[in-house]
């Protein structure tokens, strides 16, 4: 049963990251719409933020494999 519990944990971690990345994407889209000339800066920062959120999810997923 430990295997299936780990899978649920991994799924929960992904939900958290998905909400986070969704918010980042939405905010970036809004920012680009307000200020289209800053699209380059916004995109770079969006990817950076998404990567940071993703890092937390990846740690959770990997821990769910090993614990």
């Amino acid at each position, binding site marked *: 049963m430990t295997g299936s519990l780990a899978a649920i944990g991994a799924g929960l971690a992904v939900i958290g990251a998905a909400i986070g990345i969704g918010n980042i994407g939405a905010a970036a889209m809004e920012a680009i719409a307000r200020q289209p000339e800053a699209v380059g800066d916004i995109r*770079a920062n969006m990817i*950076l933020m998404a*990567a*940071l959120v*993703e*890092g937390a999810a*990846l*740690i959770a997923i*990997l821990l769910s494999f*090993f614990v």
Partner: protein
Amino acid sequence: MLLAFAQQNGGHKGHDHSGHNHSGHNHSGHNHSGHDHSGHDHSGHDHSGHNHGNKGKGASHDGHGHKAGAGHANACGYVHDNSVFNPGKVAFHHISDQNIYSIGPWHFPLPCIPYSTDKGLDFFSSSKFAADTHGTSTKAYKRYVLYEGAMRRIKDSSFPQEQVDIGQHNVFTTSRKDAKGKERAVVNVCYNGKSYECDNKSTADFGLFGGGFTSFYDFSITKNVFTMILIAFLLGLLFISIAKKYKKNPKAAPSGAQGFMETMFVFIQDEVCKPFLGPKWEKYTPFLMALFFFILGLNLFGQVPFFGGSNVTGNLAVTAVLAIFAFFVVNFSGNGDYWKHIFWMPGIPAWVKTVVTPVEFAGVFIKPITLMLRLFGNITAGHMVIVIFVGLIFIFGENGANPTAAWGTSIASMALTLFMMAIELLVAFIQAFVFTILTASYIGASTEEHHAH
């Protein structure tokens, strides 16, 4: 990767039909006493997966007095059974490192350089193992065998040192409970009717992926090592030739590969180096460029189907070394302000510092760990999804028993794989970019000058 994968399964089917398909045999005259399982100890073997895939065949077996695990047992009681497709095992096999390089249907041996504490350093070609299509050896050499492409050492020192013939399907896994009650796979070698246990794979991951610190250390030029050398060589060739062009004629418009590389180079320079590193950006640009192009090259090379199926950046050891480089560069270039902000954050009350300091200190190590895991996770996931999509063909086709379903699924699977590969192409760029931009931001944070507080 795809062809190698299809090949292996083709190989599976081939085995089934030549040696293991009982429907073609005339059972009436067979004496099955040699296959009597009662005399063998099955306690350690996993027979739960037995399924003939074809009920008609199973029935005919029963008529001939076969027991539940019908098939050809080797002298150690292990039954080689390919009638059940195990997608998880296949996926892990295809993302792991190997001592054989496969290009399409051809397998090339690679140098094996194991170091054992008792026998010292050895150097030989992996052709000594005479591996079958799965990369499992049919011969043992100096107590080493190949199991699914990876080298293992037989624990028992009484096993002959010279090259010995062990035959097909005589290297196999059994499962055993370890001290914590967790199921562990153990690789065994059957030689002269006796079962010899093998050491784990030699890895430096503390046994997280089933390996661990073993009685031998594997310094072989494996598939991943070979790919890294190849990519480093190709990148060196490309950049040196481009650099020469600039030297010879700096005013000329870029042409050919020069234009392509210049676009990416200038992009990283303007989007990553300059904004994140401040006035000292030129000092760290070579490191960041090397990171970006090396990761990008490996990511893209891993996407090439049929060509080794290298999963280098999806190997935790490789990403760990890249992250360790980033860790050293960040911390060795860190100035006084950086360390002050970690150990004694200015401008906050003392009792808050007791909370902030441990968190900041942990952050020093968490940053490279996330770098390592992010790249590893993204690339491995991409490779895994593609293998699973291809594996769907064998799941729905019931591993060859239902060719119509297999052909039908293969169309859908091909479309999905193509779609996935397009996304992976994007991921290859994004992950190389993210690794570089995060490293740049960490370096930027550690070298930033603070003037006012």
